């Protein structure tokens, strides 16, 4: 419970932190490291208007607003995961191309594992075991 309220408090703080406004959504940040972080984050956020594309590759207006938001927040010193959490808090898991690890997404991680195990078992049955 404490952890939840703590993270909520961070989110509130995040929302309230005044950040320097950028002139344009699509202007690289002066700090290349921050820009790289921002671009990586934008690549993993889904555009809510056009839906198939990441916000880093969409011409929709709201995607542009989100790019501006991402750049501003990163420039203000927020971590990419804080910004992602802020957006997920508003738009749901849907906005992030990176699925969270939680019970509902367990099959995403278990199915590949099962496939590897089942495949290895099937293949090993066809092996000739040579006696040494």
């Amino acid at each position, binding site marked *: 419970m404490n952890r939840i309220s703590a993270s909520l408090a961070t989110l509130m703080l995040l929302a309230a932190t005044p950040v320097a406004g950028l002139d344009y959504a*699509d202007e690289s940040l002066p700090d290349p490291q921050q820009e790289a972080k921002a671009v990586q984050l934008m690549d993993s956020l889904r555009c809510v208007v056009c839906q198939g594309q990441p916000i880093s590759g969409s011409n929709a207006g709201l995607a542009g607003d989100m790019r501006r938001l991402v750049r501003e927040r990163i420039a203000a010193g927020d971590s990419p995961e804080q910004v992602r959490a802020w957006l997920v808090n508003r738009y749901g898991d849907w906005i992030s191309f990176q699925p969270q690890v939680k019970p509902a997404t367990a099959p995403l991680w278990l199915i590949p594992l099962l496939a590897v195990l089942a495949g290895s078992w099937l293949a090993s049955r*066809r092996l000739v075991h040579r006696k040494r």
Partner: protein
Amino acid sequence: MIAEAGLAALWLAAAMALLQVSLGVLALTRGRHQLRSAIAPVTLVQALLVTIAFGCLIAVFARSDMSVLLVAANSHSAKPMLYKVAGAWGNHEGSMLLWVTILGIAGATIAMFERRLREDTRVATLAAQACIALGFYAFLLFASNPFARITGVEEGQGLNPLLQDPGLAFHPPTLYAGYVGMSAAFSFAVGALVTRNVGPDFARAMRPWILGAWIFLTIGITAGSYWAYYTLGWGGWWFWDPVENASLMPWLAATALLHSVSVLATRDGLRAWTIMLSVLAFSMSMVGTFLVRSGILTSVHSFAVDPERGIFILALLAIYIGGALALFALRIGTVTEGNRFELVSREAALVINNLLLTVILVIVLAGTLYPLVLEGTTGEKISVGAPYFNATAGPLAIAMLVLLAAGPLLRWRSDRPRLLLERMAGPLFAGAAALLALALLGGSISVFPLLGLIVAAVVAVGSLAPLWKRKLDRTPLFTWGMVMAHMGCAIAIAGMACDSAFTKENMVAIAPGETREVGPWSVTLTGVHQVPGPNYTALEATLSVRKEGSTPFTMLPQLRQFTDPPMQTNHAAIDTFWNGQLYLVVGEQGDGERWLIRMWWKPWVTLIWLGGALIAAGGALSLLGRVRRDVLGQRTQWRPGARKAA
């Protein structure tokens, strides 16, 4: 009249397909041997009729006959001729007609040229092929008639401007040729199951079809990726988007099948697995068609979608795939298991290759469909994209590439680990050299691109190793093909790794006269002007580009505004150099005189598609080699026992 002629031809073709199925069933079950020889001509007539129907559709599109509903809904008389013709398959009905046309032609080719299969297997194969065609004819005639008429329409509604691109005009036919080629492999598998004839002969008969389909799929994916790269205007070349995944899944299955079929042909092993893979590869083709055509998933690329028709395709999918899987379960028990294999052998490497490819396929399938399943069951919406696929499929792909370097260096049957290590010395040395070079070059590269570059070096040298100490002029063509395709993998991986490691990006807002840098280039905005296009108007930015110590040149990205239908697109200006591409895009206008310009310098990015092209070319070389050997083999076949001796 043309439309009616096309419809009539389509009905007749469907009747021929029905006849083909009936002949096949009668010949196989009632023992009417004389019917066997009738099936080939019927197959030819069916192919001819469906080709005529497709020709009629192209004709009504070329003439902009707006009394045909499909033309009115998807074409426009002001479009350039190329896009009028391409418009014939740039929509749902037309693309399905194209599907069945290629299917018909594939059937005819099997009927004419396939001579080494046992006759009953061949008849069963052709009957299975006609069965598939029949479903698609029914779909066209009852649920999506491409020749339906409409009255009172003067002008068409136009084609999505993103689709008005020469590359894309030929993209769907390429992918469909791949999908349909997989249907041939599927029919072979069904024929072999029905007649209980799974062995090296069957594998050799099926192999050219798999190779052919695989070449088309490779070209289709490579071209589709380049298309997304240059039309969407944001420098990305793969989005792990559902439609892209839908084309990747059949490719993964076909690649696995290509390798397992060579085990079956050479060593008579992996019988059941090869059959299973042919069913899987065709299933993935059908699933691909279904995903793209039903509108079940949201995607960048879904241009023509219709949920009602999705049910029809789903029904076809259920009948064919369910039927084949049931047949598999019933019959495969009677197919004796093939040869076993040892852990250190070419077969084992190919089996692990199959295992890895199949797991990657499972990952792509799960990642694409799971969000749908979750939303259907709990209503919860999630997205699965690049971060998931890179993290799960990425390591497997790297492992597979290491195997790709080692596999061709292993002997069939059994080999010794120490000898393999000796043969791998060169490739491993290349990998170490790449690591050293990257370390000396400095800069920070993240783990994946770094591994990618090292593995690319290993594979590049490893792929050439099968030619080592061989007489090059006596090396068979298909070995050259394999070398080339494996080299293509190394090159494509190197391109992907370079793109993510070395790309320089700069997004700026500049007024005319101002200069900004991206990588080694200085880009100056000279001005922005309005230019008319054939069916759009564009804002064109004139950018003067120079590198230190060289003469400047001009690049002209455009922001295009289409009216029919209204839509804005970015037309990137891309200049290719020996060591990469400069990618410039003009976005919207900022305050006053300033314009938003997006600039990317992408070193070695072209290697991605060059690698893809090389993979396809390697496949083509292999196909040529196999077919040539077959033809030569058939010429000597008149001598009894000649084949056994060979």
